[in-house]
């Protein structure tokens, strides 16, 4: 059904740690992985799925590590990749950074985790909060008599343990919208979408029942409140705690939350919005002598709002030298290792327009290889504002002990994949 064995390799392809789940693939097969990967890369035909003989390798790369699953069967590929990413998530939550060193430092617990995450190729418990209840880094202190499986592992509510207590019961709700934008070189918008996420930070005692109310258009239409301002969510994805069939029935978002931080839901809207920060650029390249760059940035959002930490990165040729900048606001910096100029503006009020000029020298001998035309990228954050207009109408919290809990809501809009192609 899925993985036969899972390996973590260093950047050179040397196995750091592995776990054989099914025993049908020789563990030495992994030696073929790196040569194969390099060969395919050279051919320009590298894909996340490689095969050598009858062995298939499904791999992901995380920082300087390769996580590789092997199989002989027609495995469920999407399950394997999700599992590998989940594994990275669990390890990262255990060790803060997942890297070669942290693996070496924690090999005992990694073995324990690998044993618990998957059995015979079937993913089992992958919720790090629950795993931490019975697999801890202080493992050597645990005696057999004391360590028990938390019932949560096999419960229908497998993400929250019972008996959690807080003095002050609170929920923090972050509504974060990322704007993805793709503009072609002549300034027309090819793709504009909003990917929103609602993240919760839950400090609640007991087993609380939560209900989240949004100004969801479908819900408003169902309940006949279509006059109110609402948002049409094109596609919604929920954390496993949300009762999906309930949502499918009457659009109610009801759930028992995990404890602490988690992402409750994400949604996508493809309604075209005016690009929040608009860039006009002129990049003039005079071969063998210089490059002149002029970038104009305009804040196309409400005057009352302010975009923070704005960073506009403009591509420059890799052989450029002796940079000179002039900015009307903020500061510009040449980052040669990325071949970009980064223009940073701490605070960018709506409706304002700023200008940056840059000048680079070019060597008289041009280098041979052709360079791509990377797009201009923009990063920003606009607090207290959502582009879509989504609103949290209520968060009802009911627990059998009947405590009062306070929800806090925060809105923020930020740049997602925000690209403007250059000519």
């Amino acid at each position, binding site marked *: 059904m899925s993985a036969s064995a899972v390996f973590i390799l260093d950047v050179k392809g040397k196995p750091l740690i592995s776990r054989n789940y099914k025993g049908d693939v020789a563990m030495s097969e992994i030696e073929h992985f790196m040569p194969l990967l390099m060969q395919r890369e050279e051919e320009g035909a590298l894909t996340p799925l490689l095969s050598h003989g009858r062995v298939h390798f499904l791999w992901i790369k995380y920082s300087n590590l390769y996580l590789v699953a092997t*199989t002989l069967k027609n495995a469920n590929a999407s399950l394997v990749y*999700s599992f590998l990413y989940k594994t990275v998530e669990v390890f990262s939550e255990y060790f803060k950074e997942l890297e070669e060193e942290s693996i070496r430092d924690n090999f005992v617990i990694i073995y324990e985790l690998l044993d618990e995450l998957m059995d015979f190729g079937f993913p089992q418990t992958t919720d790090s909060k629950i795993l931490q209840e019975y697999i801890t880094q202080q493992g050597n202190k645990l005696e057999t008599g004391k360590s028990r499986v938390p019932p949560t592992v096999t419960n229908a509510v497998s993400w929250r343990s019972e008996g959690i207590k807080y003095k002050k019961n609170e929920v923090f709700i972050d509504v974060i919208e990322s704007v993805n934008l793709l503009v072609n070189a002549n300034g027309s918008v090819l793709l504009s979408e909003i990917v929103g996420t609602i993240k919760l930070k839950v400090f609640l005692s007991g087993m609380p029942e939560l209900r989240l109310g949004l100004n969801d258009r479908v819900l408003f239409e169902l309940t006949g409140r279509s006059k109110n301002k609402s948002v049409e969510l094109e596609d919604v994805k929920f954390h496993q705690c949300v009762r999906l069939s309930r949502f499918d029935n009457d659009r109610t978002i009801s759930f028992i939350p995990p404890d602490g931080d988690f992402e409750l839901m994400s949604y*996508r809207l493809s309604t075209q919005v005016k690009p929040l920060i608009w860039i006009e650029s002129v990049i003039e390249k005079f071969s063998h002598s210089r490059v002149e760059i002029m970038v104009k940035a305009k804040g196309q959002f409400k005057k009352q709002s302010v975009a923070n930490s704005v960073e506009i990165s403009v591509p420059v040729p890799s052989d450029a030298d002796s940079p000179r900048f002039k900015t009307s606001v903020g500061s510009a910096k040449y980052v040669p290792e990325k071949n970009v100029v980064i223009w940073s503006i701490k605070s960018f009020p709506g409706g304002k327009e700023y200008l940056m000029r840059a000048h680079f020298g070019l060597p008289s001998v041009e280098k041979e290889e052709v360079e791509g035309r990377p797009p201009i990228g923009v990063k920003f954050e606009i607090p207290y504002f959502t582009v879509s207009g989504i609103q949290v109408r209520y968060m009802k919290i009911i627990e059998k002990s009947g405590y009062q809990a306070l929800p806090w809501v925060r809105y923020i809009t930020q740049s997602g994949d925000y690209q403007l192609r250059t000519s």
Partner: protein
Amino acid sequence: MTDSKYFTTTKKGEIFELKAELNSDKKEKKKEAVKKVIASMTVGKDVSALFPDVVNCMQTDNLELKKLVYLYLMNYAKSQPDMAIMAVNTFVKDCEDPNPLIRALAVRTMGCIRVDKITEYLCEPLRKCLKDEDPYVRKTAAVCVAKLHDINAQLVEDQGFLDTLKDLISDSNPMVVANAVAALSEIAESHPSSNLLDLNPQSINKLLTALNECTEWGQIFILDCLANYTPKDDREAQSICERVTPRLSHANSAVVLSAVKVLMKFMEMLSKDLDYYGTLLKKLAPPLVTLLSAEPELQYVALRNINLIVQKRPEILKHEMKVFFVKYNDPIYVKLEKLDIMIRLASQANIAQVLAELKEYATEVDVDFVRKAVRAIGRCAIKVEQSAERCVSTLLDLIQTKVNYVVQEAIVVIKDIFRKYPNKYESVIATLCENLDSLDEPEARAAMIWIVGEYAERIDNADELLESFLEGFHDESTQVQLQLLTAIVKLFLKKPTETQELVQQVLSLATQDSDNPDLRDRGYIYWRLLSTDPVAAKEVVLAEKPLISEETDLIEPTLLDELICYIGTLASVYHKPPSAFVEGGRGVVHKSLPPRTASSESTESPETAPAGAPPGEQLDVIPTQGDLLGDLLNLDLGPPVSGPPLATSSVQMGAVDLLGGGLDSLIGAPNFVAPPAATVPANLGAPMGSGLSDLFDLTSGVGTLSGSYVAPKAVWLPAMKAKGLEISGTFTRQVGSISMDLQLTNKALQVMTDFAIQFNRNSFGLAPAAPLQVHAPLSPNQTVEISLPLNTVGSVMKMEPLNNLQVAVKNNIDVFYFSTLYPLHILFVEDGKMDRQMFLATWKDIPNENEAQFQIRDCPLNAEAVSSRLQSSNIFTVAKRNVEGQDMLYQSLKLTNGIWVLAELRVQPGNPSFTDLELSLKCRAPEVSQHVYQAYETILKN
């Protein structure tokens, strides 16, 4: 303090030292030693020598230590099977530990020790653990059954573990249910015949309930299991779909894809007229689009699957073109897949945008991506006719960039555009010729040479251009050589006077100086053609080429259907059936989409389909005289209908002669020297050689030499109903002509004369092509055989059944009426062989509800025999594929009225117990399918 210190001991006497430490009395020291052993194991050192010492540490109340020892055992037990027995006691004991964590750990580890001797000891503990009070232990034990089955299947069956596992599907705990489902699916996969999962509406309901409660992974196991179920009707399919759709909102992409698989499969059973069908289509698009924001590897899997979904149901994503636009930082494998889907979605509505994007991509730096983008522009031109002009001008712009690989790629696709729209864009040839020198890839050179040859009459210096290629003839690849040979012959036929020398040169290069049999044979054929009959050569070489089809790279329909059943798996990523990459036939079940067996529609099942009407039963369809009279009395029974008598079979005979002679001379004289080419032009004006054109008839008609199957004559009109005239007959088809072979017997006492025949209007316009000629009067007890040529230009009226023919025969005594059923294969025309690409496109184009499936029972023929037998009745095999030992024949036939019928025939050769053939027919006029099926049966069984 970290564990990394355990890796640092690299002293020489390490093993020895570890041994001492393992046997130490101090607990802490022991544990440290085990950790060092595991550390050594992790870095790949062989520490199996310490086996007994490590196993000795197994009896401990320290959980961490126990886990490490277990880990060690899993790794080395196989290499030390005898010593592994030592561990059994502790395992058995641990399976009874009061702590469920230990019980589960023991049963989990035992299953991973793949030593036969141990498995027997595992049975009792496993049996207990399967009934454990703690769900954590039960869910672990469920998986253990699958492990044990993998080691010793017989043991698992004998011990009755499979039944216990099936019971766990009804467990109160969702995680136990999920693992039981996973374990059963895994076992069932390796034993396809076991019917382990035994899915029925009750068990399906249980699974659907568990779906709402279990973890994301459990949901995937259950969805994948559901996908193997075939609902009994469309209502059940719909109700399952309704309960699966909420999963599309799950945050885990794998859950979403497994849900998509179930929906795509069950949708097949829903009627397109249902409102729900449309709702479901709409619900599928947004989650598929959202998958593109997942991690790149998951995006890749999603894109490969979307590629299949777009081919199967293009309507789902037709408005979502923009999301497939490529981003600068997409990994290359994502870029290439997006490009592929963009082309599939390209239509007149969005072509402008697509082209603008493709042009942008064509100027990027990644060579592979750029090439594919250029090729994509060509594919757009071919697919969307309205855009062809814009595509061509875009390609010309790209050629102006002079970037070598862009130019080459552009020339290759422009050649295809010429093939699709002949005589439309030749004005660009001049620009192409300018770039001749920069072409260094065989495909581009071959394409350019093809263009020069094809349009030689419009290129003033075509001879010079081709001559320049000829200089390095032997260094070219075969592709280029073949193309050059053909191009020069074309040039010669178009401009004979100036190019004799050139053609002679290339012919001698190809035939005398080449070792390549393909090249040599083609050279000889041209040479021979040119020397014997240049006019025929012209007909052959400059023949009009069939247009190339719009869609390329389409996946065969049956493969596509199979892959839809494998959404999310490796098969869907490779676009290959699992049998192509999973070892051995074992473990691979051929999957196909469920047939549309909606309760409201009635597709005839093979059982109820009547077998080919046996002779004698025709009488059943004779309508009452009264009915017939109404129609037939209006008919003029006098002179025969018009229409030229059809040609006899002399052509066929001539062809046979030619075949003999022609081949003899070709085979018998491999070293023949053709007459000097200089004499050839003199023959140019010669009249067309009939011999050769016959030869070419022959190639298309080889199969028809024996003619279509002819049923034995049956009595159509018994003597007692026709005042002593008995008529029996049958239908034949030979080389394009249909005839009705009649046998008239006079069983009366008087002489019969003045025979005439007339048909009522019928479904295919069958009508006599000549009068019924009974030369002499028919005396009593005399029998005469007559062959009555038929044509299909008569008036048409749909009959019931479709192949019913009502006939009136007149003689000096009276007018008699009878009706008969003609076998449909007499209407199968000789040019019914469809081009492969065309076949694929047509198959896809015909809606699925037009597909009808039949079974031809007890037909012990192999694929070749089937194919040749059918071909003699003008059912042509377009392609053949072998899937898991079964031969799939893809066949086409055309009826006289131009209706195409496409067929897929599944043959299982060499399997005496499976002599049934499965036939799927697709046709735009589905009412003919039943009769085509009968024709198949008649042809194959006689």
